[in-house]
C-alpha cells in the first residue's frame, strides 16, 4: 500500500467538499460550497488548479458528464474521491481531531 500523502489546508477543504457533495461535485457546486461554508471568495480557476493537483496526486478522479441545458449545453466535469483520497482525508481528519482533542473549550473561548 502506497504511503498516504498529506493534503494541504486548501486541498483538505476541497476534499471535504467533494466528499460532502457526493455525486453532485463539480466546479460550480464545489466553489459555492466552500464560499458559503468557509466564507471566502474563490475563483473557479483556483478550484480547478487544486483539483488538478489532487488528481495528479491520485486523491480525486474526474469524469465528464452529459451536456446540460441550463449552462448552454456545456458539459460538467465531476469529481469524486479515490480510495487513496478517502484514506488521506480520514488520516488528515484523525490527525487534526487528535491534535485538537481537549482543546475545544479553549479554542471556542478565543475571540
Amino acid at each position, binding site marked *: 500500500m502506497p504511503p498516504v500523502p498529506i493534503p494541504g489546508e486548501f486541498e483538505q477543504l476541497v476534499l471535504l467538499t467533494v466528499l460532502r457533495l457526493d455525486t453532485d461535485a463539480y466546479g*460550480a457546486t464545489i*466553489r459555492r460550497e466552500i464560499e458559503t461554508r468557509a466564507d471566502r471568495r474563490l475563483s*473557479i*480557476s483556483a478550484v*480547478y488548479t487544486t483539483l*488538478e*493537483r489532487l488528481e*495528479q496526486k491520485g486523491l480525486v478522479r474526474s469524469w465528464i458528464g452529459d451536456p446540460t441545458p441550463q449552462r*448552454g449545453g456545456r458539459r460538467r466535469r465531476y469529481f469524486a474521491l479515490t480510495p487513496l483520497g478517502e484514506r488521506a482525508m480520514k488520516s488528515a481528519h484523525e490527525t487534526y481531531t487528535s491534535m485538537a482533542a481537549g482543546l475545544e473549550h479553549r479554542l471556542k473561548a478565543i475571540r
Partner: protein
Amino acid sequence: MTRLLLALIRLATPRADREFVVGDTVEEFDRIGQADGAAAARRWLRGELWRVLAAAPAHHLAARARRQIARQDRSGTSIAGDDIRHPLDWTTLATDLHAAWRGLIAGRGTTALAFAILTLSIAAGTVTFSIVDTVALRPLPFTSPESLVAVSMVSDVNGRTTPAAPQDYLAWRARGITAFEAMAAALPGRQLRLEGNDNESFRSRRITSNLFDVLGVHPFAGRFFSPEHEQPGYDGVAVLSHDLWIQRFGGDPGVIGRQVTFIDVGNQRATREIIGVLPPGVTYPITAGQQEPAAYVPFIPTEAEQSYAGGRSLSSWVVGRLRAGVTLQEAHTEIEHVTAAIDTFPQVRSDRIAVMSLHDRVVGPAKSWMLLALAAVGLVLLVACVNVASLLLARATVRLKELATREALGASRARLARGFLFEGLILSIAAAVAAVAISFWGISFAKSQLPAELARTDTIGVDARVLLVSVTVSILCGLAFASAPAWLASRSHLAALTKAGGAVIGGRRSARTLSAFLIAETAFVSLLLVATTLVTASFVIVTTMDLGFDRRNVMSIEHRKSFVQVPEADRHVAAAAFRADLLERVRAVPGVTSAALATLGGAPLSGGRVKYSLDIPGLGETPREDMLETRAVTAGYFETLGQQLLAGRTFDTSDRAGAPFVAIINDEAQRRFFPDRDPVGQVVTFQGRPTTIVGVLRSMRLDGPEADVQPELYVPIDQPFFRSSISSGTLVVRTAGPAPAAVHAIRGAMRPVLDGAEPSQTSFIDDSFRLLTASRRLNASVMTFFGLVAIVVGAMGVYGTMAFVVAQQVRAIGLRMALGASTSHVMRTVLLDAVRHVATGIAIGLAGAWAVSGVFASLVFGVTTTEVGVYLAVAGLVALVSLAAAFVPAIRAARVDPLIALRSE
C-alpha cells in the same frame, strides 16, 4: 459585456478545462442573477475575471503537468511541448520559446556567427539612422518651420551655397519683398569675452530685431529685441543663448536687466543690458560649428555694409517667413527682380540668388552623404539577413531528421515553422539589444568623425525614435531570415524525406534556395563595393591632386592696420614701411623659413577672392566670365607658397612705388588671353595704369581640388594701383616644422607693430584643405567601413554555404571517388559550383550598380560612375575573396575518404 468577460475567462483558462470552467461560471452567474439580480451577477462576473486572471498561471502549470503525465502514460516517453492540435496555447508558446532557445544554444557556432553579423549590421544601422534622423529628419526648433525660407547665394565659381550680402539684404528690406510676411537676418559678430574673464571668448551674432519673431521663438526668460534697438545709440542690449546663460551666468534669472561689459578682440569695451535668454537648443543660423554659446546683439549696419562700393562680404543669413499661398519660385522671382533693379554694383557678381526652404538649407550639404550612408547600411543589412538566413537554412537542413521525427510524433508543420521564427526573433532581438548598447559608443565615435559642414550634430544621440526604428528593423530582419527555414519546415513532407534518405533530398531542395541566397549576397556585396571603390577613388584623387602650391607647413594670419591718421599723400609710403617692418620681425622668428604679405584675395583655400578685369591690347576689357582673381603681394609670396614660375621673373623689392607698374599672371590667364603669344613683356592696362607683365606662374587651385583653375593676376603690393592704401592684409608664413608650433611666436612678433590690435584669424592651409576634403574623407571612410563589413560577411556566407553543400554531398563525393574520380577533380567540381553562383551574383550586382550609378554621380570626383576599370576591379576582388572562402570546403571535399563516406549514413 457579459459575453466579452466570459470570452476573456475562456481565453485565460487552459484549453482542456475551458468548457467546464465556462460552464461553471455561467451556472454561477445565472444563480446569482436569480438570487440577487442581474446587476449583482454582472458585478460578480467582473470580479471573477480578475480572480481568474490572477490564478491563471498556476492553473496553466497544473494543467501542463497533468498533460505530461498523461502522455507519459500513453507512450512511455516525454516529448516536451508538442501539443499537436492546439498550436496557440500559452504553455505551448512558452515551450516553443524555450525549445527555440535550446536550439540556438545547441547550434552554438552558427548562433554566435549569426549574432555577430546581426549585431554589427544593426549597430551600424542604428548609428547611421540616429545621425540621419537628427540632422535631416527632425523638424527645426522653430514655429511652423515649413514656411521658413532661406535666401542664399550660390557661387558661380565653385557652386557653394553661402549667406547673402548685407548690402543685398538691406536693399531687399528697403524695397520690401511681398512674398514674405517678414524677413530677418543674422550676421556674425566679433568674438567677445566678459570683463574679468580673460580666457574664454564666445561668439556674438548681430541680428535684426525681428529675427526671433520671424522664426517664431519665444523667450526662455526676459524678452527679445524691439525695432527701436536697431537705432544707433539704443542698441546697448543683448540676448543670451541658453547655454551661454548657463555657462557664464550660472543660469541666474537675475541676470535679466543687468548691465554687462563685453570686450571684443580689438579690446573695445561695450556695456549692454541683458534683456533675454533663448530657449535651450535654439540657435540661428543653424549651421556647422555655429551651435556653441553665443550672445545676440542688434544689427546696426556699418557704413561698408550699406554700400556696394567696397565689395560685398557674404555673411548675412537671411530668413523669410513665406506668405500663405506663395511658392518658393515666386519668392525667388521677386527677389531676383528687386535685386536686378537695384544693382549698382561696381564689380561683377559671381554668384546668383538661391531661395530654398530653411530646412533644405540646413540639411542640404549633408543630403548626398546621408543618402549614401543609408543606402550602404541598407545593403549591409540585406547582406547580413541573407547570410543569417542561409546559415539558419543550412542548419535546418541538417536538422531535417529531427524535424521529421517531431512531425511523425504529431507536431504540426505550422508548429515546426514557428520554432524557426522564434529562433530568428530571439536572435534578432538579442542582437538588437547588443547593437543598441554598441551604438552608444558608436555614435560618440561617429560624431567625432562627421564633416564640419554637417549641422545639428551635437544633439545626435540614441532616443526613443532611434530605438523604435532599430528594434523594428531587427525584428523585420529576424522574421526575414527565419522565414527561409520556416518555409522549408512547413512545405517539406518531412516523413517522406526521412524515408527517402533524409538529408540528400532535403539538401537538394534547400540547396536551390541556398544558391539563390549565395547569388543575392554576392550581388549586394558587388553593388556596395562598386560604390565604395568610386567614393574612395574620388577621395584619393582629391587628396593627392597637385594644387599648384605646397600646402604643408604654411599658415595665414589676418591683420588690420589703420593709416587714417597719416596724411593721405604719405599713406602709401607709411604702409610700405609698416609691411617691411612686419615682415622683418616675422622672418626673424626661429623656425620661419619665409614670409610674405598679400591683400585683396585671402590665402589659398580660404575662399576669399576679389576679381578685376584687365584691358589687353587687341582684346579689350576682359569680359565678366574672364575676370581675374587678383592679389596684391609682397616679394617672396610665390616662394612662400611654393608656386612654380613658368616664365619671366617674380617680384622683388625694386617693384615699389615710382618704379614701372608690373604684374604677373598665371598660365590659365595666358591660355585665355595670350593663346598664341608670349605674355611676358606685354603691356596691359590695370586700374587705368599701363602695366608690364613680367612673369607667368603655374595655376593654383585656389578653391581646392574640386574647383576649376581661374585666371589669376598678381601685382606688387607696394605699387600704388589703388587709390586708398589697404588697411587689412594676410600674412602667409612658411615654417620649417609643423606650422602650429610657431603660431605663438609669430603672433607675438606681429603685436608691437599693430598698435595693440590683435592679429585675428590664424589658419593653417593644411587645415583648410582638410576641411574642404572632410566630406570626401567621411564618405570614403563610411564606405570603406561598410564595404569591409560587407565583404567579410559575404565571404563568411560563401564559406558557410559551400561548407554546407560539401557536407551534404559527402556521400555523392565518396561515391565518385570510389568510382575513380581524382581529388583534384573533386576540388574542381566544388570550386566550379561556387564560381557559377559567385559569377552570376557578380554579374547581377555590377549590372545593378551600373543601372543606379547615376545616383552616385554627385558623390564622385575624377572618375566616372561607369568606369570599366572600377567594375573589373570589384569583380576581381569579389571573385578572389569568394574563391578563397570556397577553398577550405573544396579541400575538405577532396579529403573525403570514400570508405568512411559511404558507410556514414
